[in-house]
């Protein structure tokens, strides 16, 4: 495995990484700055200007929705919410999954068996159904979406990390550390965890689009983000209802969602190539 400096160099040499990473970065910057620059507000309705197509007047470049709200500002708000949910949910799954998987794999034996059977049990639950029940029981809560998405993703992460840990645990540098007297937590954090990073980074870039999809799906079903807050999934849902009269209401958020997903997926694949190539270098 190479040092961080050479990893960065290799990432820069990879065209897919640079193009998709740049595009994604651009979308995020516009989503952060756009609503501040625009004279319009995401809550402000304008009943004289319902469903107007994209125009440069008043900076309504994406047009307005069926309540006369500026679609550009709302879309950018949706991008923000979507990306925040994706990043937070992935981070949740990263932290839980890595710690859980590394502990199960390193300790091994019965502890491992019990921990992994628990993961298997959670896997067996029909998750969307479970989330719908949660939403109904605890009302629609922003926080609950993080919990729900993170709860799906950490299972995969824990399995992957456990598998890697099982093979790392048998490596001789771990035996050498044990003989020297290095404590178990220190072995996990100093010797096992850094060697998991390659796999974990790649897997996280692939869970981000997964989380975005789940959030859009929940919002599309009406279980996710609630009005007047919005997300790309919720915007697409609203757009479907106006598909015939105001196609931009569907096409613009759908295109944004699709391009973010494409970028994340390609980025994940390209990162995997970069990290796998360490064997040939």
């Amino acid at each position, binding site marked *: *495995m*190479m*040092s961080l400096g050479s990893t960065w160099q290799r990432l820069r040499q990879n065209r897919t990484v640079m193009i998709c990473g740049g595009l994604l970065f651009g979308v995020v910057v516009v989503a952060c700055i756009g609503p501040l620059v625009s004279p319009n507000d995401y809550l402000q309705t304008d009943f004289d200007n319902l469903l107007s197509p994209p125009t440069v007047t008043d900076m309504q470049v994406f047009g307005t929705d069926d309540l006369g709200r500026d679609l550009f500002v709302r879309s950018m708000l949706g991008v923000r919410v979507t990306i925040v949910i994706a990043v937070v949910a992935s981070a949740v799954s990263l932290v839980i999954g890595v710690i859980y998987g590394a502990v199960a794999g390193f300790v091994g034996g019965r502890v491992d068996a019990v921990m992994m059977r628990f993961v298997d049990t959670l896997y067996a639950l029909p998750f969307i159904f479970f989330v719908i029940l949660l939403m109904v029981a605890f009302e629609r809560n922003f926080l609950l979406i993080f919990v729900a998405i993170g709860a799906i993703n950490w299972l995969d992460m824990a399995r992957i990390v456990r598998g890697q840990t099982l093979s790392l645990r048998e*490596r*001789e*540098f771990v*035996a*050498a*550390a*044990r*003989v*020297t*007297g*290095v*404590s*178990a937590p220190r072995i996990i954090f*100093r*010797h096992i965890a*850094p*060697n998991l*990073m390659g796999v974990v980074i790649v897997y996280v870039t692939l869970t981000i689009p997964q989380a975005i999809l789940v959030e859009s799906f929940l919002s599309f079903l009406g279980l996710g983000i609630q009005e007047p807050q919005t997300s790309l999934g919720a915007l697409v849902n609203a757009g479907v209802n106006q598909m015939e009269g105001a196609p931009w209401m569907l096409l613009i958020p759908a295109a944004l969602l699709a391009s973010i997903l494409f970028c994340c997926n390609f980025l994940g694949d390209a990162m995997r190539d970069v990290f796998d190539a360490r064997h040939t270098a």
Partner: protein
Amino acid sequence: MSLLQVDGLTIRYGDNEVVRDLSFAIEAGESVGVVGESGSGKSQMALAVLGLLPGNAVTNGSVLLNGTEVLNASEKTLNGLRARHMALVFQDPMQALNPFVRIGAQLRVILTTHNLASGREADARVLDMLQRVGLPDPERQFRAYPHQLSGGMRQRAMIASALIAAPELLIADEPTTALDVTVQAQILELLEEIRRDTTLLLITHDLGIIAGHCERMLVLEQGRLVESGTTIDIFASPQHEHTAALIDAAPRLDRGDVLSAVAGNEVLQLCNVSVSYDERNGDSLQAVRNLSLSVSAGETVAVVGESGSGKTSLVRAALGLVPLQSGRVLFCGEELGGLVQSRPIAMRRDLQLVFQDPAGSLNPQMRVASIVDEPLLVHERGLSSEERQKQVAAMLDRVGLDASYRARFPHELSGGQAQRVAIARALILKPKVLVCDEAVAALDGSVRKEILALLGDAQKDGGLAIVFITHDLAVVRAISHRVLVMYMGRLVELADCASLYSRAQHPYTKALLDAVPTPDPAAAGGTVSLSGEVPSILSPPSGCAFHPRCRFAKDICRAELPLPRIVNGSIVACHRAEEISL
């Protein structure tokens, strides 16, 4: 016209020239050895001759086989030449044989694709060839899958598949490196037979093999041919300094002084140690049985045996990396119980370990300085970071690595440098016992010599006791005081170095010594005195485990287990130690 004519062969990967302007010729009927350290380009040269170089290799020059250009030849031309005119025996037959195809079918397809035979005739020729390479019960091996064969039998099958289309040129690339020394001797004997009717190009790092089996030799260094000539001349008076260094670094059984026994306090005692592993199917694998050994301060004990002899399990149990089934481990008179995790931290600093694979034993994500620093962090909590850094620098200096290595990662080191770091990590706590598990087996001859010298110095400085595990009796001859020979988990012979090398008492020890090839064309060595291979440890033979391979075996050997007893000052486990003359 020569059979193989190589002119100005250059192989490049990007800016990296692995073979430079290599020219030589091989006449039909010759046997030529190619020797060089890792990275000398010897395998690349073989791949070029067979047209097997990967697509990103850039080649220059010419390689003529029987007048046909091989370099950059079309796949069709190459397929016509391969098997019929030239064939390759790979280092690892498990990788080279298809695990899903029966041995017979793998050989048969060579005959049918080249239209040499078909139907029953092909079967008959395959069986004949399996017989010729000395596979017992050829009909059964014909139907066997590669994993059902032992390592030596697999290599025989590999050789059979190379020979089946009767090629003029047989290239063997390290054909015995993956095998045990007694099996190596058997395979070399087979190659010796083969070279009577085939031209042989034998690639190896082991000068002993070349000395015994090749008429001419080529010496490669970093892709360049530095010397070529008849084997006898080169060994007698090497012209190039690299050749001289190679010959000098080759371990020898028949020369040099041995160390005499030392008297010191016993630091590590193993009493009646047994180790067993539970298999998935409920069987248990008895790796070490009832073995006792004590090691004194300032002493080096070599533990020698073929793969599966239990030598690694023995020391891992002593270190607490695998659980003891029964027996006791005493360190300076105090009992060390259980696994290493449960031992008190203070006790762990005195027992340290160096592994075979230097790259695998260093954390790839840590820099050299922090790898060597880690034991201090655990055991010397009182030290400031500056004091630790000072100690790390001094230690690295002692193993011959200057300050520029401190910030490097393990993948930026060569094998020898990485092993130095591993030794520095093991020695920084000034342990009383150092266990080296095949610590030099993966290293080139010259590097091996330096590492052994380094260990010897460490011992002289501070009364360090070293347990040195190895499969190669020649390597440890110069550095060990006593030698423990193991076979299938049991003690076979434990003797002072001087008496073991001059007068082995157990037939197995004698066979191991005989099997080591001598790097001198004039000397005998590498002879086969042992047939067969190590039996499965899951079903050990009755009585003396060695009896099926022993030419002195009698009824008592089959029926009764020989207990270790003292014969002529050595501990020997053989019923007939006094009667037989080896």
